[in-house]
């Protein structure tokens, strides 16, 4: 009965590979997000999706392509992985993230990506 789940928890891969991280929420939320936590622990939003539609792309390279097959899932596909992509990626969800009244975001456990 995990609210926001991510798979895998750890991902180790070589430079140049393509990989995906999956996220699922069972909270019935409309909006899902991806955040990146870099090696200095700095957390920053990457994407926001509302009802399967991309709302914001926070200057993320084109190698990152989020896909939302339905509003309960938001996957992150990364092409041509680079060393600098090593980070912890957090998925989150909230009720109507397009509202000007902020709705609390609930986070997944994170996926630690290591690019060798």
């Amino acid at each position: 009965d995990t609210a926001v789940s991510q798979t895998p928890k750890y991902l180790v891969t070589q430079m140049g590979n393509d990989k995906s991280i999956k996220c699922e929420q069972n909270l019935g939320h409309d909006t899902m997000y991806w955040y990146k936590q870099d090696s200095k622990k700095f957390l920053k939003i990457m994407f926001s999706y509302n009802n399967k539609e991309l709302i914001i792309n926070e200057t993320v390279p084109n190698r990152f392509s989020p896909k939302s097959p339905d509003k309960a899932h938001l996957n992150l596909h990364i092409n041509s992985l680079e060393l600098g992509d090593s980070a912890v990626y957090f998925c989150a969800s909230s009720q109507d993230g397009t509202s000007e009244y902020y709705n609390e975001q609930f986070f997944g456990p994170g996926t630690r990506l290591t690019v060798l």
Partner: protein
Amino acid sequence: AQSVTQPDIHITVSEGASLELRCNYSYGATPYLFWYVQSPGQGLQLLLKYFSGDTLVQGIKGFEAEFKRSQSSFNLRKPSVHWSDAAEYFCAVGAYYGGATNKLIFGTGTLLAVQP
């Protein structure tokens, strides 16, 4: 621009001592404020949040925070620290971005070490 500042990168306290972690924010509208804790290798756990109302908010694990609008601050406090409180602490503000979506803006974090 919206921003969150945590002036203390690293704090060490003795077990049983009191704790205050500082957070200052910059946000034009009514802020939605959060404190998260991240234990080593773990995900983000919400400690407490401020949306409106009483400016002193209580959270889990004996933490509290006080919202001071005049100082643009939301400092986290605990009267007596336990060794298990050693972790990274993040302050965040919930922002309404570009008239389109919510996002969380995080501070750079404060690493708390607890001495026996």
